[in-house]
């Protein structure tokens, strides 16, 4: 006998545990809420980081927090005002709830809401539990032919959609993506779906490049130990990018990649910072200025990204099945975290608790 909501919790830096928490209930004052029984949760680099370092930037784990935010599940119960989903529906879950009242929210950039309550960003509990509560408009019904496992990939796919929107990728563009991890691979896939004619994946890992070539890249480029300028020159010549790429996405966070990107863009091109590494780096600002580049950040996702990601998966324009390289039982969550930290596979999913 217990609460019956088994949860996987980060107690403090380096220490995880399982705990049975109370089952959430729809509150009267939140009639738009939905309670989802979580079925699959992907592990993200940020989860690993909180586990290992206890903080990301000024978000510090000060009290035990449920981990996980890349989830899909089955609707368990709905509030009285909910009209778009019903119990039994399979949904992808968008794990960040904005305030809806501030200037950023009302101008359509809710990902920038200063009061965002984001799953598994301290102090907000995440989705690695039996049940998770979220508002109706952050639940996206999965078409019947899309599996719940694919549903758990909608979150990183939405990140990629948002990155590509920031990059304003248009049909005919040439796009380079630094970093062939899940986000980088998904950026390649989305760019291709949006009509980019050249999609080049860059990495230091041959295995990842092999995969990228089979997955969504039209060509790959293996980074070597060389200067950023030399690397850019070699990239342009080896992949026939002429005067430079139209759009370059950094999904690595690595300083050398960020520098190389600036040199590998054509004049007037667009650069999107998606990856997170060192907080401050040495940056080729003269090249950026004289080439009149558009430089943009990209953070999570906002209106339309989740819906578009579901549609891209649903219509087969992007495929996420291949990215799932491991599926573990809820009780094996800690081992899964260790495996992801050791860079095993591409995306490991943790199943929801069964017992």
């Amino acid at each position, binding site marked *: 006998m217990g609460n019956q909501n088994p949860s996987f919790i980060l107690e403090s830096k380096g220490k995880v545990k399982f705990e049975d928490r109370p089952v959430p209930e729809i509150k009267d004052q939140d009639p738009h809420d939905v309670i989802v029984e979580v079925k699959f949760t992907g592990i993200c680099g940020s989860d690993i980081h909180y586990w290992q370092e206890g903080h990301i930037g000024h978000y510090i784990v000060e009290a035990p927090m449920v981990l996980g935010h890349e989830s899909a599940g089955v609707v368990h119960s709905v509030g009285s005002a909910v009209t778009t989903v019903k119990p039994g529906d399979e949904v992808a879950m968008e794990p960040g709830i904005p305030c809806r009242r501030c200037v950023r929210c009302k101008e359509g950039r809710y990902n920038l809401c200063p009061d965002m309550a984001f799953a598994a960003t301290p102090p907000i509990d995440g989705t690695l539990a039996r049940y998770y509560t979220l508002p109706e408009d952050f639940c996206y019904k999965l078409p019947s032919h899309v599996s719940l496992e694919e549903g758990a990939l909608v979150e990183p796919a939405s990140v990629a959609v948002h990155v590509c929107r920031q990059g304003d990728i248009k049909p005919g563009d040439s796009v380079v993506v630094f970093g062939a991890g899940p986000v980088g691979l998904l950026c390649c896939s989305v760019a291709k779906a949006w009509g980019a004619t050249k999609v080049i994946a860059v990495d230091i890992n041959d295995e990842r490049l092999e995969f990228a070539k089979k997955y969504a890249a039209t060509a790959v480029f293996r980074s070597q130990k060389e200067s950023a300028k030399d690397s850019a020159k070699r990239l342009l010549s080896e992949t026939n990018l002429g005067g430079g790429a139209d759009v370059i996405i950094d999904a690595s966070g690595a300083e050398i990649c960020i520098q190389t990107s600036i040199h590998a863009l054509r004049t007037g091109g667009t650069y999107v910072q998606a990856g997170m590494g060192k907080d401050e780096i040495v940056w080729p600002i003269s090249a950026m200025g004289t080439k009149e580049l558009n430089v943009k950040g990209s953070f999570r996702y906002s*209106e339309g990204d989740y*819906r578009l990601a579901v549609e891209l998966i649903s219509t087969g324009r992007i495929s996420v099945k291949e990215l799932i390289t491991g599926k573990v039982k809820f009780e094996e969550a800690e081992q899964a975290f260790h495996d992801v930290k050791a860079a095993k596979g591409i995306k490991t999913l943790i199943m929801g608790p069964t017992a």
Partner: protein
Amino acid sequence: MAAENPAFVLRKVKDVAIEQRGVPKLRSDHDVLVHVAQTGICGSDVHYWQRGRIGDFILNSPIILGHESSGTVAEVGPAVKNLKVGDRVTIEPGVPCRRCDYCRQGAYNLCADTVFAATPPWDGTLQKFYPVASDYCYKLPDQMDFEEGAMVEPTAVAVQICKVADLRANQTVLVFGAGPIGVLCQAVAKVYGAKKVVGVDISQSRLEFAKSYGADEIFLPPRLEGDPVEASEKIAAMIKEKCGLGDGADVVLECTGAEPCIQAGVFAARKGGTYVQAGMGKENIVFPITTACIRALTIKGSIRYTTGCYPSAVDLIASGKIDVKRLITNRFRFEEAEQAFELVKASKEGVFKVMIAGVE
């Protein structure tokens, strides 16, 4: 026993009366209750009164009129952080659902579930107290009085029109209509650095006011015989010539809804220019579509306001860049509300913006 809340009610078409209503309750923890101080009358209020509908919004049951208001915060919900009792505010009268795709993408003026004051079936602000979400209430700086506070709404409409037009400094801006919205657009365009603002109207007196307000040049179109579209094209040519607009205006703001003005506006825009439809008249009109195509015009609609418009409007008035007091020509006490409406309906020369004071 509930305190009294006198309200100016549109019971059915052409039938208004002051009724005693209960004091409205706060609808959520984020609401405030405003003791309304001043309310301006808008063409839409008069239209619901006389015709009972605008488009799909149909008067099926009584509503309280009014939506251009200011007042004092009388009560705050427990979650309200930005306001306290006693604060002087201007009210943004349309609160959207915050959950639909339009709201989430920053176009809350397009939310189908907006609760908009005095748009059926929602009650308006011509009552002693009005409840509204706290983030749709903006504090008035000390130097702004309640009448200016009530003028923020039409000013915000003008700000939105200029936002939709993507106005930049040093453009030529042609505005059709010298009513409150038209002259406010002219004034906002001027503040935003327009090189030349031209105002067009069929009323000489309104044009003269416009010239003293935000317009650099004014134009009174002559009555021309013959084919109406050809006449509009001739008028456009006259405007361009007389007002030195060259190939055409960079931006045309159509604030009348009148068919000849819409046509002339399309003909008077320069190649590649922008045309914004703000005025509302006939629902379907004869439109010079080939001209719009060949001259690669960008044509947009503008409705109400979006994020940032209210704060911008407050700033334009508070900083003295726009003088809205000059637009107020008639003032009435709350008990005289029906008279105020009759005056607006009569459309007499010399009547511009009519204010109704709140209940003490």
